[in-house]
């Protein structure tokens, strides 16, 4: 999957934190055609303000090859203030400061690159508040 065109469809959520709020109140960060709560198809686009709370976390010590140079690194499930759930890395922190219930803010960071001359990936990560 080394073509770069496919990244254009990731721009709304990865670069702009766009999400969906369904008419039943369910907020989905990943694009869905139908709400898993009530099966309503009615939703509006919202932009997450970029703050949330740690629901659960771990510190990855053994990673897939693409992340091997970054270990150990914390990752967490975050519930945003709007109620969307997502998984992301926690960066720029002392690992021992990462706690369930901790408040975070999203930042725009480099994720990696596809080979030596491939595209550079960017994405949201989180920092502790």
């Amino acid at each position, binding site marked *: 999957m080394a073509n770069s065109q496919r990244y254009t469809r*990731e721009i709304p959520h990865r670069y702009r934190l766009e999400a969906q709020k369904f008419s039943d109140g369910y907020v989905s*960060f*990943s694009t869905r055609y139908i709400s*898993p709560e009530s099966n309503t198809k009615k939703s509006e686009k919202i932009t997450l303000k970029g703050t949330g709370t740690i*629901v*659960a*976390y*771990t*510190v*990855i*010590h*053994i*990673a*897939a*090859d*693409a*992340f091997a140079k*970054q270990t*150990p*690194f914390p*990752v*967490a*499930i*975050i519930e945003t203030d709007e109620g969307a*759930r*997502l*998984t*992301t*890395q926690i960066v720029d922190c002392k690992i021992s400061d990462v706690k*369930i219930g901790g408040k975070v803010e999203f930042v725009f960071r480099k*994720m990696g690159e596809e080979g030596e001359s491939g595209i550079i990936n960017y*994405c949201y990560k989180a920092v502790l508040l």
Partner: protein
Amino acid sequence: MRDVAIIGVGMTRFGELWNQSLRDIFAEAALKAMENAHVEKLDALYVGAMSPGLYVYQEHIASVMADYIGQRGIPATRVESACASGGLSVKSAYLEVASGMSDIVLAGGVEKMWDADDGSFILATASDQEFEAFHGVTFPGLYAMMANRYMYQYGLTREELAQVPIKNHKHSVGNKNAQYAFEIDFKTIMNSAMVADPLRLMDCSPITDGAAAVILCPLDRAKEFTDKPIKIKGIGASTGPIALHDHKDVTKLEAVKLAADRAYKMAGAKPQDISFCEVHDCFSIAEIIVAEELGFFDYGKAGKAIAEGQATYGGKVVLNSSGGLKAKGHPVGATGVAQVIEAVEQLRGEAGKRQVPNIKLGMTQNMGGSGGSSVVHILEAV
């Protein structure tokens, strides 16, 4: 729908099988099962496998396997549901026999994992590739987050968590097919490498090559092939959220409860009727949460109950007499079928030192991903 029985079983040893290829190990298990059932000709074949394409670059494996077990020409289907592929293979074969479409059907599972270059990447394809794996979360990482939240919510201690692999390794001793049939203690676990905090290497099921196969036929024909047919009394399958973060409570695996409720209902059974179950202990925390979802223990209580001996011989229910995924090994596509084989051997009274006394029903629970799917079987000697 017709009643269906298992009339033969066969599996390879689980472990590092460097001298055998993907097709070799499947053929070994399948031919053993056919010999055990005294059948030479199959009407159909199902093969559960998670990712032979990524592990050894071979797809189209149902045809490969039909060809290499002497059954060229029969209909053959590959079934995939990540680590629950094996369980779903048995369910698919069950439906083919129950419906009346075929009489003699082999349900197998296989995975050849040791040949792979980047096993962490391959396993992570069973998670949400765009919203989890993209961020560097590994499979142990997802279960580590479940453990992290469970310990926070229920006060489970590191020592209690360790009792799951300690028990399963103890059960595995003497299981000739198990990859790591030896006992371990708390020190072994705490001295093993940290994989994803709080899970250490000895909390994680291993990388395994292996295959397993069972032969199904209509119950009313079973006595033609065996004196000890095992009836498939209940089956439940389910799906759940693909991403762990989409579980409202990450200490629960609702797909397991859905599958179990369906299997209990079909079998006319309750958790209290079960004295033996093979459960999907891919990580220490998984067995604890699964034991709660199957109804053996209340939410938040299974960790303590297992630590107190309630999931071993003499306790409430024997979980993983085989040694489980942790000690027996976890060739992902084969695991669900191997669980059924352990239940068949228990119900036939052929489990040797691992035999659970006075067993009436045998139960298995297989799981895909971080709860994205689950398959439960309830079996009975007839």
